[in-house]
């Protein structure tokens, strides 16, 4: 693996995890009675852009290197399901995240001050934040399983 690809892989992982952490902050703080709107806006912005960059650089690694250099090792190894299930599911479910994050970011940016007093909208956004976090965790853990199968 070239230095560029190692760097891309590292940043894909760290930024993906950072995005999940940022949205964990959004989720926890949306549950409060009094909403820290500025924090929510910043956290969702950090989360959204982290996911975006993670998508692009992870996608580069995946399209250019993974298919020809890593996938064959996993398929032939002890844990072929590392690719046939975990990677296949991960690479497609991951595509949801930037769109979900975009909605959360736009909503908090534009209507952040309104959410505290609008219980139905707040409840829906709590669920949306929860899905983003849970999907982020699933992505991260899937990545661990996939990488662990490369031997």
């Amino acid at each position: 693996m070239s230095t560029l690809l190692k760097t891309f892989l590292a940043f894909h992982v760290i930024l993906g995890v950072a995005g999940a952490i940022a949205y964990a902050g959004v989720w926890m703080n949306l549950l409060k009675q009094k909403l820290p709107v500025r924090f929510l806006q910043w956290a969702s912005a950090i989360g959204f852009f982290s996911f975006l960059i993670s998508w692009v650089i992870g996608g580069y690694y995946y399209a250019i290197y993974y298919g020809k250099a890593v996938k064959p090792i996993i398929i032939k190894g002890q844990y072929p399901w590392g690719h046939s299930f975990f990677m296949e599911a991960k690479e497609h479910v991951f595509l949801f995240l930037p769109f979900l994050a975009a909605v959360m970011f736009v909503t908090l940016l534009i209507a952040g001050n309104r959410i505290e007093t609008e219980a139905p909208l707040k409840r829906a956004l709590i669920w949306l934040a929860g899905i983003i976090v849970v999907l982020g965790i699933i992505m991260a853990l899937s990545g661990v399983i996939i990488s662990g199968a490369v031997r």
Partner: protein
Amino acid sequence: MELSNIRFTIIRATTYAAAFAVAFITGITITADLYLPLKDWLKLTFSHHWVGKGMLAIVLFVGISAILLLFPAPKDEVKTKALARSTWILVIVSLMGTISIIAFFIYEAFLKH
């Protein structure tokens, strides 16, 4: 103070567009694995099937957002309730999409052969 029309329209447009994008990703993921000519077309057009799915999802998201921006809020609609509704639709579509993709690849990886 009620949310302004333009703010409401932007949020609603992006939310429904995201729901469409998520549904599209789910649909094309399963379809392309079952109907290989589609996967081949994606690979031929975009150099990689996964890149193609992502790019088409982005185009769909931007396109649908733009179209929905042309439809302002009805005057009598309670805007925050409408946004709650669109967010719930996105939540449900995302959950169904995730379950569908996971179930599909469980079938492909463990049950098919």
